[in-house]
């Protein structure tokens, strides 16, 4: 990394765009504006990444032999253990953005980074307390199985599949663009290489290995990321003789913000934005199709419970590590001019801005720290892990999207439940290939676009369309098809509309003048969730037809299954 040429400050935020777009702050929004300058080819990183690819392809080959039925394909035969699933969920959640983006946020703003970590984490206990077991007891392959359990299949599956595909598409765009920019920075390879590598590998994982391969790719990546981050945090603490106090003290002395990095800054602007963001993070997580699918890969409700317990612990541990890594980067990277594009100052010494002049932008803070604490070999490892992270998340997203097409749209809506397992799997594989090609195209089409808001939008849609329908289908007897359909659509439309009318998209993407946004907040969840819940309640209550009465009557047996697990689909015998 020290050899690389100067890069544009405009690329700061490349990774923040991947998930921190959800924050809707200026920090996340300034991201992928300009072109990223390609770096010198990093053969160590490429070599390490190839080792990862070889390992995951061996696993895919193994998984392909074990993947025969639709149940194997969608849910790994229900044979994943609670701990393995916890690791896989944590892997889905510990994206390149959580790692690079949050450590970058700590690097620039200190304490504020912790605020975001906490927001991302606290949704998990709520998922466990309210929906995890019921989800496992009612579902089979997709969350639409749960939502449509006692409602009409065609409209509800179509709605749920639309919600899933919108979320998957938005997420995919952000991940593909992020992958393209990261490959230029980390490996020194062209943008298009990243799209093709990610597209081809994810098609291979999903079509041949199904959920089993996708899960193991995610588990391996989670272990590599946790291992690498643990090593970095350990080396930072060792540097300060394991005294956090001397680490923080050194950081306040080096950072241009001084002691201000130890208290909340200006990132949480007003209470409405803060609450809206909190809702989106918390309940959006419970509406992400690729996360929800993971609950069907375990044997029973008990294992579903354990998954969330382990996932919460691992994610929490990871966020504490990123906090230490961010402070470590302040102390060890900011004081070393070799990590910066420098000019000669008036006194003849090297002069640089500790935030703006960081080579590759602030998102590279953790990457530079890897170099500082572990040398070139470890730098290569962390770069490979960062890219592998995107690949693993993209594979999970693609599987979720393909399942929505094959299991919900094809098998239930088009074939009306008459499709065989083999036909369903075939459609799913075709859908995977199509999604892979679409993802490559979208990554190409959006290269020059500002996509920072897309993951934020994905969370908002998940929280405002998928989550309300899912939650009420499980717990509210009065829910009817009409109510779920209209309310869910209102949630979907209002979330998208309010994001477009909000400051980030209206002013920074659509280039209207500053302050002209019709909707003042970046995150619409508080409002769009209210619209969805109110719509579902109103139109369910107004629905007094015979079908509505039948749907209410069917609640009881659904409730008994959801609470006791009686009749729940179990693990297949492997």
């Amino acid at each position, binding site marked *: 990394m020290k050899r690389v040429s100067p890069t544009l400050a405009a690329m700061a935020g490349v990774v923040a765009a991947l998930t921190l777009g959800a924050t809707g702050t200026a920090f996340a929004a300034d991201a992928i504006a300009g072109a990223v300058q390609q770096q010198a080819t990093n053969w160590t990183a490429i070599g390490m990444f190839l080792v990862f690819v070889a390992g995951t392809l061996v696993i895919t080959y193994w998984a392909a032999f074990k993947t025969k039925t639709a149940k194997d394909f969608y849910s790994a035969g229900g044979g994943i253990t609670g701990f393995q699933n916890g690791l896989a969920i944590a892997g889905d959640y510990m994206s390149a953005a959580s790692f690079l983006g949050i450590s970058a946020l700590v690097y620039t703003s200190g304490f504020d980074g912790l605020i975001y970590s906490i927001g991302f984490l606290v949704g998990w206990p709520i998922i466990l307390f*309210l929906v995890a077991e019921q989800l496992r007891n009612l579902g089979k392959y997709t969350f639409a199985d749960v939502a449509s359990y006692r409602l009409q299949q065609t409209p509800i599956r179509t709605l749920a599949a639309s919600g899933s595909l919108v979320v998957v598409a938005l997420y995919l765009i952000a991940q593909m663009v992020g992958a393209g920019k990261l490959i230029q920075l980390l490996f020194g390879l062209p943008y298009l290489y990243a799209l093709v590598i990610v597209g081809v590998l994810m098609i291979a994982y999903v079509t041949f290995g199904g959920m089993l391969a996708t899960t193991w790719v995610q588990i391996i990546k989670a272990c590599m990321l946790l291992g690498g981050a643990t090593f970095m945090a350990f080396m930072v603490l060792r540097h300060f003789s394991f005294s956090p*106090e001397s680490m923080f003290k050194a950081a306040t002395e080096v950072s241009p913000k001084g002691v201000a990095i130890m208290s909340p800054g200006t990132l949480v602007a007003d209470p409405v934005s803060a609450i809206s963001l909190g809702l989106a993070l918390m309940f959006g997580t419970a509406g992400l199709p690729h996360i929800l699918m993971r609950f069907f890969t375990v044997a029973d409700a008990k294992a579903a419970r354990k998954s969330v317990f382990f996932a919460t612990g691992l994610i929490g541990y990871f966020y504490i590590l990123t906090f230490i890594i961010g402070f470590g980067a302040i102390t060890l990277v900011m004081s070393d001019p070799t990590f910066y594009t420098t000019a000669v100052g008036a006194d003849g010494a090297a002069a640089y801005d500790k935030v703006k002049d960081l080579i590759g932008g602030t998102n590279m803070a953790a990457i530079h720290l890897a170099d500082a604490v572990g040398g070139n070999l470890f730098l290569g490892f962390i770069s490979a892990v960062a890219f592998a992270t995107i690949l693993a998340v993209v594979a999970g997203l693609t599987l979720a999207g393909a399942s929505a097409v094959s299991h919900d749209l094809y098998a239930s809506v088009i074939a009306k439940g008459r499709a065989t397992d083999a036909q369903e799997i075939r459609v799913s594989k075709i859908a995977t290939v199509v999604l892979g090609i679409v993802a490559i195209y979208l990554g190409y089409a959006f290269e020059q676009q500002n996509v920072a808001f897309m993951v934020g939008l994905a969370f908002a849609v998940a929280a405002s369309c998928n989550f309300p329908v899912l939650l009420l289908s499980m717990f509210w007897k009065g829910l009817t098809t009409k109510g779920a359909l209209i309310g869910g659509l209102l949630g979907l439309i209002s979330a998208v509309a309010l994001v477009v009318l909000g400051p980030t998209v209206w002013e920074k993407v659509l280039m209207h003048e500053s302050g002209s946004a019709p909707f003042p907040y970046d995150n619409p969840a508080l409002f769009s969730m209210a619209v969805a819940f109110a719509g579902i309640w109103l139109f369910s209550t107004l629905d007094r037809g015979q079908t509505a009465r039948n749907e209410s009557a069917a609640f009881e047996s659904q409730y008994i299954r959801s609470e006791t697990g009686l009749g729940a689909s179990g693990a297949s015998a492997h």
Partner: protein
Amino acid sequence: MQQELTRKIRNNPKFAELTQKRTKFGVQLSILMLAIYYGFILIVAFAPSVFGIPISGVITLGIPVGVFIIVAAFVLTGIYVRRANSEFDELNRQIIEEARR
């Protein structure tokens, strides 16, 4: 057969006991988690200087509070899983067994 099982479970007072206990426990823990999180967020939004109070050298009150919330999230899930794996699962097992009898 399925209807018969459903009827037996519905009429078993243990089923009402299970759902009431579990729902109450889940809601209580959720409220606790939400109170902790939104308490934190509201202090950040309205009185950020509280978290800037130094407690030991340069370390401010906000740092241990933040770490506490992360640990609390994990501990609360642990508390739920512990009770669910023992008490609730046992009750659940009895309900299904009695229905199949």
